């Protein structure tokens, strides 16, 4: 076998933590306990898990509106994530950001923001900082297929190529930009080709196969670290939940505009189901092992939700705090 048991187990655990945490948000969103906009990552776990496993703790990532998975995979605290989604003082952004603003500077997660393509240039800057300091860090910019409609992505690809920046542009193509299908956004389904026009090495890969993601990003990281960046990778994937909130296709309130057949097809390609099958077949982990991991993860998540709900809200006297760094 190519990979160590520990690495394979960690892939599974990382993906499962993301999935089970995301699914735990569904009910509190529907019953109004969680009010901030939440964009669930269910279905795309292999991308976050595969990408972040190829990075060092000191490497940087920037996320977007759908970044719970990026935050957790890069090592962000599950308790702080849930508390932030509940907008509590104990959250990673002290309840000032909510689900769309996740950060853990010590883990290299430098922020997620919901302006589509808005963090691509920030990631560019972090990679430029690494180049100036010669600190050999690599930066990953996570964005979706919708970002290919924003001009700043093109400017950034050009600038990264011109300066040979150590940055990996990770496009998670889940085929939908909010309600709009890719077919309505672009005449061709070929986002990965954009990079080539700017002289950026570009690839397309299966985003639901964690090993393929890991292998592809590992090669990209090596290129970047040796001064041969940037790299653009388009991962084909699918979100199992709606774009945002309970009025999309969260259970029981089906207003999803996506064809039911398409959803069913992609369910068959569920990255976690696919990978657990592989683990069992290869004899890496038994059914019992998988169950025991699941049990531990569920326990951790239950603890995180309890922590979040028992946490204090930010004080209203502190409304004006953090506008400026003193």
């Amino acid at each position, binding site marked *: 076998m190519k990979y160590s048991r520990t690495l394979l187990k960690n892939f599974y655990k990382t993906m499962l933590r993301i999935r089970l945490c995301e699914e735990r948000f569904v009910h509190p969103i529907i019953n109004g306990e969680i009010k901030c906009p939440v964009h669930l990552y269910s279905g795309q776990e292999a991308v976050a898990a595969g990408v972040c496993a190829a990075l060092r703790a000191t490497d*940087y990532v*920037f996320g977007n509106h759908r970044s719970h998975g990026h935050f957790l995979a890069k090592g962000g605290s599950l308790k702080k994530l849930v508390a932030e989604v509940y907008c509590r003082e104990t*959250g*990673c*952004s*002290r*309840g*000032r*950001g909510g689900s769309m*603003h996740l*950060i*853990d*500077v010590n883990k290299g997660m*430098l*922020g997620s*923001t919901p*302006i589509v393509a*808005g*963090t*691509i*240039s*920030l*990631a*560019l*800057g*972090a990679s*430029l*900082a*690494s*180049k*100036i*300091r010669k600190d050999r860090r690599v*930066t990953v910019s996570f964005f979706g297929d919708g970002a290919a409609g924003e*001009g*700043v992505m093109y*400017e*950034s690809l*050009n*600038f990264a190529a*011109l*300066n040979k920046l150590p940055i990996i542009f990770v496009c998670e193509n889940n085929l939908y930009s909010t309600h709009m299908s890719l077919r309505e956004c672009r005449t061709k389904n070929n986002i990965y080709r954009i990079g080539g026009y700017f002289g950026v090495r570009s690839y397309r890969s299966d985003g639901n196969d964690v090993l393929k993601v890991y292998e592809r990003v590992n090669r990209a990281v090596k290129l970047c670290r040796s001064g041969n960046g940037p790299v653009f990778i388009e991962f084909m994937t699918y979100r199992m939940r709606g774009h945002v909130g309970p009025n999309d296709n969260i259970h029981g309130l089906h207003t999803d505009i996506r064809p039911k057949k398409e959803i069913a097809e992609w369910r068959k390609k569920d990255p976690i189901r696919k990978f657990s099958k592989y683990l069992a077949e290869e004899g890496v982990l038994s059914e019992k092992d998988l169950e025991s991991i699941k049990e531990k993860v569920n326990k951790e998540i239950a603890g995180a939700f309890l922590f979040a709900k028992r946490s204090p809200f930010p004080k209203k006297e502190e409304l004006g*705090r*953090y*506008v*400026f*760094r003193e």
Partner: protein
Amino acid sequence: MSSGNRILQYSLAINEALHQIMAADKSVFLIGQGVKSPWYVGNTTGGLLKKYGASRIIDTPVSENAVTGTAVGAAIAGMRSVVVHPRIDFMVYAFDPVINEAANYHYMFGGRVCVPVVIWGIVNRGGEQAAQHSQSLHALFAHIPGLKVVMPSTPYDAKGLMIAAIKDNNPVLFIDDRWLYGIKGNVPRDMYTVPIGRAVIRKKGRDVTLISVSYMAEVSRQAALMLVKQGISVELIDLRTVKPLDKEMVLRSLKKTGRLIIADGGWKTCGMAAEISASISEEGFRYLKVPIKRITLPDIPAPASSVLEKAYYPSIGDIVSAAKKMMQKSA
């Protein structure tokens, strides 16, 4: 180095600030269009490329959005970035990284990370350059929580505020006016800062408080000299920083004079002068002997024809006649 008197022109004071802070702090870098061009950004970037190399003096293609975002992102990752826009009009392309990202970042992440970036925009007015090469956009940025806006009018302040802006842990807009680049004044050789948020009284007076910033501070200085000859004593305040506003100094002066003229190189509606007027109405209404007078650009885009330009830009004469009228009213 000595701190003795030395006369330097405005643009070279900025150049000296950049040289000194880049020597003192390795995390400082300059990025933007034309930074290695000897003619494009005045002479503010002279010698920097040679001394600090292409890794810290980064010339860029016209990609204002990505380049500004790059400066912001590098600051998030621990650098002290300076991004220059030789024409502030082009900076409108960079509203997203400035307003959505840099301004909000510290707040929306609960103070977990700060963004020490200087966004330097140069105002180029007149010369029949028309609507898209002449705009003064400071009020737009001053509107945004999380941004500081400085606009020096003297070589001394240009150097001190550039250094203060780079040392600040927050996003600071450093906006200067090309018409000031040739102005000469005393500039100490040592590195020093001018505090952000602090105005200065350029000339003491008892009849009218005249406040302005950037190039209008220079116009106001000349107007004040003429007014003295006509028996009107003007207290001249140069704000230096548009945001945060030094309200205390304005109020103290107004308490003494009871009359207030605000001269601004921006537009009238929702402009800097409007903001100051509103603040003074709230907090200093009792000191006002006569209504506040705003001298600004009219709510009209900048024209090309020099005949129209002459009518467009506020002049020394506009300030002089406003002060005289004000004195007559309250005589």
